[in-house]
């Protein structure tokens, strides 16, 4: 009984973390784009005259979206048109279950892992759910019965399928180095040290894999260098026939994908919740210093480290989105199939050769 209670608490906490971060990522995106474009950005939203850098802006946006008319075109396929945004939202939201937020904690003799679903196929679970997210795109384009939306969804599906190949292959090398698909074990393996002082993070062991994964994951989020499925400004995207809350769900899905990609990058390549030289007893520096810390402080540091790494990658992705122009469609496919896939195969080969030495 208590197990189910703990599980429910973990699910609620993870979802709250996810959704609050999503809301504030919209604010961060507006602010960062404003800084890049030498503007001030959203700063007018206020409660009783208090406006701290426009921090209430996400709530204003959410309220606006909720009270907009829920518009379903007469020519659309009603049920699928409604289902599509919820599908794409669901398949991104569920992936948070596999992300480890921190090391196991002990409360009253019970060991609780800071992860909802610690399966031995955790990594593949995330990839499977991200691949099912395609259905949200395909259905939204097809059910809208609008040929521009359909074209957008075909572009989107082709892009996502192509980049999934590179995404999966880039992780094979990593799986070979940390021989596990269980995300918590991958993170644990990254806590060891290379040459006695260097954290064994994935980015140091798999630099090429990291770069390929970063590009492929950016393509999976469908944002600007790779935003051919959406193309808000010029080419019409798959959610052209959506408005109000359903459009908001698609936008939220985008931001949640950014967070999931950041969380995956952190977990796989940057040590997850590991802080360099921090073990369960406290800091143990390679030059001999020891700094004893209590278990709660260690857990807090680990969770904070995970969060900071995720924030840094979110920031990086927003920076990329506001810096680079969109790729042309043939450039997109060339990058995916002619560069990333061969490079990831090369990465697998190189990893195998180095490991067999």
């Amino acid at each position, binding site marked *: 009984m208590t197990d189910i209670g703990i599980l429910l608490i973990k699910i609620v906490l993870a979802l709250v973390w996810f959704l609050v971060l999503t809301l504030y990522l919209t604010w961060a995106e507006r602010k960062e784009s404003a800084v890049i474009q030498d503007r001030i950005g959203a700063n007018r939203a206020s409660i009783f005259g208090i406006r701290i850098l426009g921090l209430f802006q996400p709530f204003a946006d959410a309220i606006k979206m909720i009270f907009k008319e829920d518009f379903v075109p007469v020519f659309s396929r009603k049920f699928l048109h409604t289902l599509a945004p919820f599908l794409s939202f669901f398949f991104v939201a569920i992936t948070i279950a596999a992300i480890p937020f921190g090391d196991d904690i002990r409360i009253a003799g019970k060991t609780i892992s800071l992860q909802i679903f610690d399966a*031995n196929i955790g990594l*593949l679970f995330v990839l499977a759910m991200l691949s099912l997210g395609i259905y949200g795109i*395909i259905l939204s384009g097809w059910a809208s019965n609008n040929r521009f939306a359909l074209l957008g969804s075909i572009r989107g599906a082709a892009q996502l399928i192509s980049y999934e190949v590179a995404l999966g292959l880039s992780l094979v090398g990593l799986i070979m180095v940390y021989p596990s698909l269980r995300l918590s074990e991958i993170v644990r393996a990254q806590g060891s040290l290379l040459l006695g002082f260097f954290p064994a993070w994935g980015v140091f062991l798999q630099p090429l894999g990291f770069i390929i994964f970063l590009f492929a994951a950016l393509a999976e989020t469908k944002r600007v260098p790779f935003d051919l499925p959406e193309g808000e400004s010029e080419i019409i995207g798959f959610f052209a026939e959506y408005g109000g809350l359903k459009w908001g769900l698609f936008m939220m899905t985008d931001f949640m994908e950014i967070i999931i990609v950041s969380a995956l990058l952190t977990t796989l390549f940057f040590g997850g919740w590991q802080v360099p030289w921090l073990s369960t007893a406290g800091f143990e520096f390679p030059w001999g210093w020891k700094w004893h810390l209590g278990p709660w402080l260690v857990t807090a540091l680990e969770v904070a480290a995970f969060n900071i790494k995720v924030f840094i990658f979110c920031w990086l992705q927003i920076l990329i989105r506001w810096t680079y122009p969109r790729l042309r469609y043939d450039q997109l496919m060339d990058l995916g199939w002619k560069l990333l896939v061969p490079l990831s195969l090369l990465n697998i080969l190189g990893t195998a050769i180095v490991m067999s030495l």
Partner: protein
Amino acid sequence: MMILLFFVLSVICVGSVLGMIISKNQAYSALFLVLAFSCLGGLFGMLGAPFMAVVQIIIYAGAIMVLFIFVIMMINLRKGISPERKKWTLAVSAVISVVLLAELVFAVLGTPPMPYTAAFSSGTSPTDIGRLLFTKYLYPFEITSVLIIAALVGAIVLVKKREKE
């Protein structure tokens, strides 16, 4: 608890296959099939094969059915094709399927029930499958990879429009 989950999943699975048969629109058929395959993925997970469950979802639901829907979108028939109406084909198919169903059900019920072994109930790890795949089944594995490459090249060659025509 588990038996309830089994019945829910199998009812959804069979129901969506029926829906696929009944629906006239091919795109709806394909979507019903996606639902059926996802439920099958859940059933695979219940059978202690989490790796196969995820492979089922990634490959069947995430890739093969997307391919089907892609082709359906490209062909994009305005009207669906209604199921077969000729009397004699209906009769023949009904007879054949009833006979086959009866035979297979008898075959299943006739086999003595096999007891579960305890070691297996916790589920298999992908490591075991990988080890088996790269030792005992190495040659089939390599042949499959050649088959996949052949299918890839074949599909491209078949569908590609020739320049002069």
